[in-house]
């Protein structure tokens, strides 16, 4: 510095190291590199736009030094800029920067004096298009939900013991291996029908649809598993494709979707009859556990044995019960017989007495009847006079003089004629 030359500077009173003033044209002011960089830095720091800026670009060659920070180049087709994402901001970022990733960055531009570069200091970073994609996802979800294909009522139960299980997944990689491992251990009785497909990339969605439809044409399938391993949001995006979602909803038999990890939920999951958190879980949800089946059939056999033993026990119990009942009844029969005999005796006696009394009564009655009979009266000297037409003559005036009368006496009949009548003589008879 040469403070003795202030006149050469345009603004001597404001001159300081932080704000060097351009030297006059005529007399060059020789700056140190540090001064230069500081000058540039202060210019950049003073710019309000550069202090609060959004930039979209593609990440290139990210590096992760031991400091925990991340440094990368952000570029587009024509230009590039260095970027720094410090440890704290990196921890908050929704994605870890990887080569080729398109991102939208917020931050500020500053000069890095030691290297004479300006760079982007990132305070937030999101995958480019995430906002758009989320909006598209929500719109499609609402649209498909309105068609009813996500309705709980559409969901069918998974058959308890599936014989033929269709699987749509990539035939290479861990997912198919996991599924077959689970089923070998858990339910080797099943027959698996693999319908292979690619499960990522731009052509994945139509390929998955074709693989599903090939399975749908298979006879006698009991259930279908659609599976894919974990991956980035972009990798799983084909399971949000409308064609895939609709193909899942069209499954002719119950379909289980197991895509990505527990937290990944795609529209295909909503359309499935059952959502599995992972591909392995899908295989487990599709099948019973053979170890439990062995226990179940073992118990059935025990029950058959117990039932047969029970049959015999029940019959023996029945016979015993009958025998006891008979034993209980036997003394009763004797007593009843005794009672019956008693009753017969008493009845016989009662009837006998009754007959005797009746017989006596009858004799007495016969005597009385005999006493009252006309024959007995005639025997006592009375006679009965009848007219020729058989009327008994009770009143003397009822017969005419000269009428024939037939008089019955105790022994025989007298034929006579009326000579005279009078209405006296009854008292005489009684006197």
């Amino acid at each position: 510095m040469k403070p003795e030359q202030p006149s050469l500077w345009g603004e001597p009173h404001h001159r300081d190291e932080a704000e060097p003033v351009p030297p006059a044209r005529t007399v060059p002011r020789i700056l140190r590199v540090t001064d230069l960089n500081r000058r540039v830095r202060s210019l950049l720091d003073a710019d309000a736009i550069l202090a609060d800026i959004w930039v979209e670009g593609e990440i290139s060659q990210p590096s992760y030094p031991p400091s925990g920070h991340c440094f990368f180049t952000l570029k587009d087709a024509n230009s590039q800029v260095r970027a720094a994402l410090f440890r704290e901001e990196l921890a908050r970022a929704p994605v870890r920067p990887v080569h080729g990733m398109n991102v939208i960055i917020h931050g500020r531009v500053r000069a890095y004096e030691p290297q004479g570069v300006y760079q982007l200091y990132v305070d937030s970073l999101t995958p480019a298009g995430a906002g758009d994609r989320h909006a598209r996802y929500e719109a499609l979800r609402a649209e498909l939900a309105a068609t009813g294909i996500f309705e709980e009522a559409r969901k069918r139960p998974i058959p308890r013991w599936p014989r033929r299980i269709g699987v749509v997944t990539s035939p290479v990689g861990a997912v198919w291996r996991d599924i077959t491992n689970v089923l070998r251990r858990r339910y080797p009785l099943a027959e698996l029908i693999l319908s292979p497909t690619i499960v990522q990339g731009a052509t994945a969605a139509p390929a998955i649809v074709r693989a599903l439809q090939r399975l749908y044409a298979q006879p006698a399938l009991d259930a279908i598993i659609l599976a894919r391993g974990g991956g980035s949001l972009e990798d799983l995006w084909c399971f949000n494709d409308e064609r895939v979602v609709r193909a899942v909803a069209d499954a002719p038999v119950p379909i289980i979707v197991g895509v990505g990890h527990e937290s990944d939920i795609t529209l295909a999951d909503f359309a499935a009859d059952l959502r599995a958190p992972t591909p392995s879980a899908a295989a487990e949800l599709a099948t019973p556990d053979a170890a439990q089946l062995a226990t179940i059939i073992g118990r059935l056999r025990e029950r058959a044995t117990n039932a047969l033993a029970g049959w015999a026990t029940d019959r023996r119990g029945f016979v015993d019960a009958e025998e006891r009942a008979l034993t209980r009844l036997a003394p009763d029969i004797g007593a009843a017989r005794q009672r019956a005999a008693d009753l017969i005796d008493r009845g016989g006696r009662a009837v006998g007495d009754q007959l005797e009394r009746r017989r006596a009564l009858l004799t007495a009655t016969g005597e009385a009847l005999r006493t009252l009979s006309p024959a007995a009266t005639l025997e006592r000297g009375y006679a009965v006079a009848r007219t020729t037409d058989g009327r008994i003559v009770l009143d003397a005036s009822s017969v005419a003089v000269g009428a024939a009368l037939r008089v019955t006496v105790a022994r025989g009949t007298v034929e006579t004629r009326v000579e005279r009548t009078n209405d006296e003589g009854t008292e005489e008879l009684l006197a």
Partner: protein
Amino acid sequence: MTDDTALRELSDDDLVKRPFDELVVALQQTVHKLEAGNVGLEESITLYKDGLRLHAACDKRLREAELTITELGRRGVTGAEPEE
């Protein structure tokens, strides 16, 4: 479902080829009939023998089962998808 008379007529070899779930259901039905107890001695013994045969067939199926895998389009019939 095949009724128990039809299953009775199958040889042990044919019985074990029936679908596993069908065998288990037949076993369950046999046990239920035995447990109901409203059959005679002869029928009970026949049912019990049925149960033992069905149990043996289920057990054999479980022990000897091997996962069968068919891959659609592998033989070029329907055109496989390219692999990842």
